[in-house]
């Protein structure tokens, strides 16, 4: 009975666990990948996971403020993508490469 309940009754915790899984995958991407563009994509994945949990809290608490926060997160994410990609373009012009293995000029 408990198992079927968990499968058919979708509650807040389902969305939160999904959000946690997506966030962890994004974090793994940031830690493991070496392509600058894929790093930025993984950051976007993490921001989306946070958005899911904001909207889930907003629905299950009956409070609209969470959706406002999602607006702000989306705007900041778009700005972050724009700046990150501009930096990637200028890095590519400098090094002819987007693999972070080759950016060693800041090493002491």
């Amino acid at each position, binding site marked *: 009975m408990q198992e079927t309940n968990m499968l058919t009754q979708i509650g807040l915790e389902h969305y939160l666990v999904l959000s946690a899984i997506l966030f962890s995958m994004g974090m793994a991407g940031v830690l493991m990948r070496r*392509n600058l563009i894929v790093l930025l994509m993984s950051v976007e994945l993490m921001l989306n996971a946070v958005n899911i949990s904001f909207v889930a809290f907003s629905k299950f608490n009956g409070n609209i403020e969470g959706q406002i926060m999602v607006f702000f997160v989306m705007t900041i994410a*778009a700005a972050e993508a724009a700046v990150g990609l501009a930096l990637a373009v200028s890095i590519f012009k400098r090094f002819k490469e987007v693999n972070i293995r080759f950016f060693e000029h800041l090493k002491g």
Partner: protein
Amino acid sequence: MVDAFLFWFLAIVTVLAGLSVVLMTNPIYSALSLVMTMVGVAALFVTLEAYFLAGVQLIVYAGAVMVLFVMVLMLFDLKHELQAFTRGKITGGVKIASVGIIAGLVVGAITLGTKALELSKAGAETSKPVVDSTKALAENLFLKNVFGFEALGVVLLVIAVGTVALSRTKGGTHARD
């Protein structure tokens, strides 16, 4: 029952697409998987009755941001990628383990905190009816949070100018030095 089926279907699609963002070695496939993830997240917003946010998610992420990503990928000409993942089995293992620990902590905290949420839900049920959520959203955004909204406008302007300034130094994207 339909809700449950929709949630599980969308969750599986979103998680698989997110996994392929991280695991694909060709960046263009990663970008396409990210589009799929964004669409899945937008559909999850629909199941959470945030219809306007679902639309914004589709337009801003799946539309604008992903087009930006794909355009920059086209500039780079990355057909094959040398060493897509980090080197070193030990550090890789440490990274995967830390991610797993974080995920386990979060999921454990959620399952432990569910009881506390259940207790506080009784008080929240009274303020539940957000039927016309787009109207409520607009009222909240333009009356209560109007300062944040304007500040975001300023941030976007600064970002736009900064991005143009950053990518136009020394001949823009077509510089050959």
